[in-house]
């Protein structure tokens, strides 16, 4: 079946602009995660959704970052007033159920802020 998809695959934006990154999880997966991965580092947790609600947003670095999942499926990560330090690969993952299960990762969106 289809895996987790993320669009766009690459995004180049100017400092100060607003960007939206989209994640389509595996159908039927109720849990959805956003991570940020900088070069040479492991993924850094940003936010976790269970259904439509953000169950844990403690990883969002500041109030410029926001994520939604209005219908419990597709999620959008929104970054306002982008900064060069936001440049990274943004990863989305989904998993089935409410337990601690394996996560299925998308290919990521590479964000470059110039």
């Amino acid at each position, binding site marked *: 079946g289809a*895996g987790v998809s993320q669009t766009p695959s690459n995004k180049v934006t100017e400092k100060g602009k607003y960007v939206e990154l989209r994640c389509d999880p595996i159908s039927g997966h109720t849990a959805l995660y956003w991570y940020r991965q900088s070069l040479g580092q*492991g993924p*850094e947790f940003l936010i976790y959704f269970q259904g439509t609600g953000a169950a844990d947003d403690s990883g969002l670095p500041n109030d410029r970052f926001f994520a939604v999942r209005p219908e419990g499926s597709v999620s959008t990560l929104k970054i306002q007033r982008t900064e060069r330090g936001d440049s990274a690969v943004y990863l989305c993952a989904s998993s089935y159920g409410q337990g*601690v299960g394996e996560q*299925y990762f998308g290919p990521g969106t590479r964000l470059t802020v110039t």
Partner: protein
Amino acid sequence: AQSVAQPEDQVNVAEGNPLTVKCTYSVSGNPYLFWYVQYPNRGLQFLLKYITGDNLVKGSYGFEAEFNKSQTSFHLKKPSALVSDSALYFCAVSSDNYGQNFVFGPGTRLSVLP
């Protein structure tokens, strides 16, 4: 706070030899431990997990890991390495105190030499 250490940036092993990729962790509560692999130009893939039960966990592609509570370790092992195992390996941890807020290690690059 929870943390993960992967003390080796790079592990080199000859094809056919056993391999070990090390991971140590620090959490409060009972740990949930995962290994993921990242192949070039591909998303992270789940290998195996420890939640509870047997300390020796078997996973995909012939990999296994042993949970050692006293040493707070979860080393990844394989009896006989393949060239196709060459990839970036990440250890991740959460706990019953932190739920779905996972911390990933910095990654270990495994090179299996023919």
